[in-house]
């Protein structure tokens, strides 16, 4: 009998420890969810609407930008209104590929819309650039040329890593030098010219400097594994102490916003080059609002 007693006490204690560990697990997961939202906040990029929605919007508006950032297309030319013909598009795509090859991996996008629907060109360009993440993660060697043909507005948005090679005055020079072509409605030539000039400016500097990189969040990393681990251990112990009676319950509480968030550490450090294994957009480059705008 005493043996039995001791056994049940041990099992009860085990159950209590299990529950505590589970509480710890839940706490740590909650914590990592917090860190997650913080990271999201740090990387403020407006959400892009779903592809179908965007396609529908583009078809309706004939190439107008209404606030929903369309998906980046392979080749980095986004032209929902088909303002460029097939030949111009191919030539531009080749020019962009040449820029990527000669700058050691820099990515430049070209977006052409008819109108920005009253959204300031700086806002529109930054939203696209931050959504598409042109340039490589860490090097931030990206740029985006945005042209609104009916608004007669243009902006060259320069990624953080290229701000040294292309200060705003050089970006302004580039805008000024392509503005005659824009005035003449030679959208393809103007965009190609801009890509060539960006390449020349970047090659003028030895190599894009690898700047800072994303903020270091390494000390928040153990939160998830630790949380998961103790949660599982907790479940196991609780389960065994209850004689194997399964009582799995999904935690329905917490932030609604974190429901579909991938676990921390699940983001690949750098996305693979496009055209290979599916297209995932830019490489993770960051933008801080550098560049120049103009009207033509």
């Amino acid at each position, binding site marked *: 009998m005493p043996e039995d007693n001791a056994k049940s*006490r041990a099992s*009860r*204690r085990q159950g*209590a*420890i299990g529950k*505590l*560990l589970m*509480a*710890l697990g839940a*706490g*740590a997961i909650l*914590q990592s969810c*917090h*860190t997650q*939202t*913080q990271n999201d*906040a*740090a990387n*403020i990029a407006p959400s892009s609407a779903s592809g179908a929605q965007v396609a529908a919007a583009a078809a309706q508006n004939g190439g107008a930008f209404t606030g929903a950032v369309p998906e980046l297309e392979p080749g980095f030319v986004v032209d929902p209104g088909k303002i460029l013909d097939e030949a111009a598009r191919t030539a531009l795509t080749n020019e962009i590929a040449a820029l990527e090859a000669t700058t050691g991996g820099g990515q430049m996008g070209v977006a052409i819309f008819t109108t920005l629907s009253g959204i*300031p*060109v*700086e806002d529109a360009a*930054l939203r696209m650039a931050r959504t598409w993440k042109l340039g490589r993660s860490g090097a931030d060697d990206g740029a985006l040329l945005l042209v609104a043909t009916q608004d007669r*507005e243009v902006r060259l948005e320069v990624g953080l890593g290229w701000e040294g090679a292309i*200060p*705003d*005055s050089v*970006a*302004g*020079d580039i*805008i*000024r030098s392509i*503005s005659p072509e824009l005035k003449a409605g030679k959208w393809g030539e103007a965009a190609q010219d801009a890509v060539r000039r960006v390449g020349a400016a970047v090659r003028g500097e030895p190599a894009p400097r690898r700047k800072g990189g994303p*903020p270091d*969040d390494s*000390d*928040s990393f153990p*939160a998830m594994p630790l949380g998961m681990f103790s949660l599982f251990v907790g479940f196991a112990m609780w389960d065994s102490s209850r004689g194997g009676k399964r009582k799995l319950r999904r935690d329905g509480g917490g932030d609604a916003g974190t429901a579909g968030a991938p676990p921390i550490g699940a983001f690949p450090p750098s996305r693979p080059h496009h055209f290979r294994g599916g297209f995932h957009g830019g490489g993770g480059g960051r933008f*801080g*609002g*550098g*560049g*120049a*705008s*103009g*009207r*033509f």
Partner: protein
Amino acid sequence: MKGNFSTVAVAAAVLAIAGCNVYNGLVNRSEGVDAAWSDINTMLQRRADLVPNLVATVKGYAAHENEVFTEIAEARSKLAGAKTPSESAAADAALSGALGRLLAISEAYPELKANENFLRLQDELSGTENRIAVARKDYNGLVKAYNASIRRLPASLVAGPLGFDKKDYFEPPAGEGAVQTAPSVSF
């Protein structure tokens, strides 16, 4: 008895670890806000540094427009003396207003408008203003998330005693002039 003791010990350890986690989360957020604030300051400083060059260039063509030059100088010294985000934002808005007037004046001088140096300074200036706008948006977003986090459980239990206070938004106090958007250059 022994069982109770170890339960209490585990509970204490769990609480300590959870507390550390909450604390570290707050530290990370707070540091994020501070980093974003220093980004804004870098950009404000960068713009303040551009101003003397721009003023000198404009003076070469429009030396008699003294009023706007004085206004700019005052706004610049206010910006240098600002201590809180809202003081900085107010001084920044004043400087934006004065620079806007300076650029409006320059419209009347075709030679100045054609000056290459002036055009490039204007690019740098509007580029910097755009960066300030971007940095302000990022900073305010982080402050919003931080302020919400110190009021939410469980962090709200420890935030006060550990000295995590609400942080200021980068916004001029109401009524001190709307924040300007970056002017764009026309050809």
